[in-house]
């Protein structure tokens, strides 16, 4: 299996304060990885750094062999899709139009969608079980459905790596499971590499393949059996 994400000894500072030190991580294709840790332990900082928003002060990050801090934003947008923890939800926009945003890194100035783009968008909608929602207005959907639309947008972006910052934080019990299960399906069927942060270790232990914990100014991978113990010790 190919290596998708490779983080080598990175240091990350935020507002002149060191948040993460000397962290490394390698993720292969088709893996669902959960990022756990306390509030303020650096989960979002790590995800922002991998997504290209925050430059590490030391070390290297590459996605599919491309050093993301030496490539331009357009290249990066074809390697990583990123979903914020509280994304803005615009008005007057249909589900399909919102998923079409995922195609932006591939479109010209006039944003006209080609047949190929439309096929990819429809496939992304289908993957997320949204085919019958495609002409509905985005803002009339429930939070759980909205989250699926955002995930479909990430699929339409067609990147090997998908990063999600707390994708389940506003959802009910059932929708949380459904969201993580959907991510799991994407890893298995579409060979995506998905990294998401979460505050629900039980759900993650049940569904994720690998586990990374942020604590004591660094991050490291732990085995499934040690997740809870490590988390409790870090608290």
């Amino acid at each position, binding site marked *: 299996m190919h290596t998708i994400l490779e983080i080598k000894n990175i240091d990350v500072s935020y507002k002149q304060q060191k948040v993460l030190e000397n962290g490394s991580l390698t993720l292969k294709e088709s893996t669902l990885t959960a990022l756990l840790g306390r509030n303020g332990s650096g989960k979002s900082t790590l995800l922002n750094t991998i*997504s*290209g*928003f925050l430059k590490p002060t030391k070390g290297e990050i590459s996605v599919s062999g491309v050093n993301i801090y030496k490539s*331009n*934003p*357009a*290249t*990066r*947008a*074809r390697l*990583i*899709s*990123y979903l*914020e923890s509280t*994304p*803005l939800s*615009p*008005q*007057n*926009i249909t589900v399909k*139009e919102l998923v079409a*945003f*995922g195609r*932006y*890194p591939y*479109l010209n*100035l*006039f*944003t006209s969608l080609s047949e190929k783009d439309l096929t990819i968008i429809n496939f992304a909608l289908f993957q997320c079980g949204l085919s019958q929602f495609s002409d509905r207005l985005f*803002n009339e959907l429930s939070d759980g459905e909205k989250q699926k639309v955002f995930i479909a947008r990430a699929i339409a*972006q067609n990147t090997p790596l998908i990063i999600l910052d707390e994708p389940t934080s506003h959802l009910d019990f059932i929708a949380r499971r459904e969201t993580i299960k959907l991510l799991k399906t994407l890893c298995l069927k579409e060979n995506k590499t998905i990294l998401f942060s979460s505050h629900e270790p039980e759900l993650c232990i049940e569904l994720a393949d690998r586990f990374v914990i942020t604590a004591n100014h660094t991050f490291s991978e732990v085995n499934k059996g040690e997740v809870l113990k490590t988390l409790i010790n870090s608290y």
Partner: protein
Amino acid sequence: MRTSKKYIVAGLFLILLIVLFSCELLLGSVYIPAQKVFSVLTNNEHQNEVWNTIILQSRLPRALGAIIAGASLSVSGLLMQVLFRNPLASPYILGISSGAGLGVALITLSSASIGFAFAPNGLSLVASAMLGALLVFSIVFFISLRVKDIMTLLVAGVLIGSIANAIVNIIQLHSSALTVKTFVLWTLASLDQLEMADIKLLYIICPLAMIGSFLLSKQLNTLLMGEKYARSVGVNIMLSRILIILFSGILAASITAFCGPIGFIGIMVPHIVRIIFRTNHHKLLILFSVLIGSCTLLAADLMAHYFITSVSLPINAVTALIGIPVILWLLLGKKDISKTI
């Protein structure tokens, strides 16, 4: 609304635009028959010099001015509303009208009080308004290069506008009643003083800025999902922001310099467009803003002149008195204003 239906509605507005434009040319205190108006426009008739003058130097520049000013202010307001994600953002939110006002205040008010042997005329008013607008605009523009957070820029724009207003107040207090009136008249805005030379200039500058804005549709669309998302799909946020401010500023500054600070159009029209067309694709929003902005200002100018036959009304009063009930009615019928962006 389906795409085909959108274009039908747009077609109806295009017809309305032609009707309103014709009204501007046909109506007036001097009656000129329609076919004579047409032949003057097509250069077939030169016998009646008075008619020529009325049409070519008064009615035509006013009509063309209303179209370009309405379109420019609407696009400018649309750009500001997206940039700041604020439904109340207007073309003047970054202080451009205050800057223009400062320029005009300096030339009209101080020329008299310092005993400057110089009577403000049309050209000097335009030049001073333009200089004032550009001064404030460049300050805000340079701030925009330095600040990361867009809301900081919004606050900075409002503050700099307030400084300009403060200086205007100081000058006003120490000016004669007559010069204060000249200044107040400028703040009421008008299309009557436009000449064909002004129109030519506006029809070169403004369409360029509108085309520039149109080419930014992609960036504007992604900004709806937030700056962070826009960055994640490869949009260069700093460059987009600079271009948005530049185009919006050029549109607002050039119209304000020639016509004065025409109010409400820039806030109102983008909302009307969103409510009628129910889209958030900026390729369409910009096109429809141009169309509906032109219609709105033409209608407002017609009302300013002919609503009460013997008296003309200030255009800002008309845009407020007629425009605001219209937008309230549209909003009450649909949803609240924050939900249209």
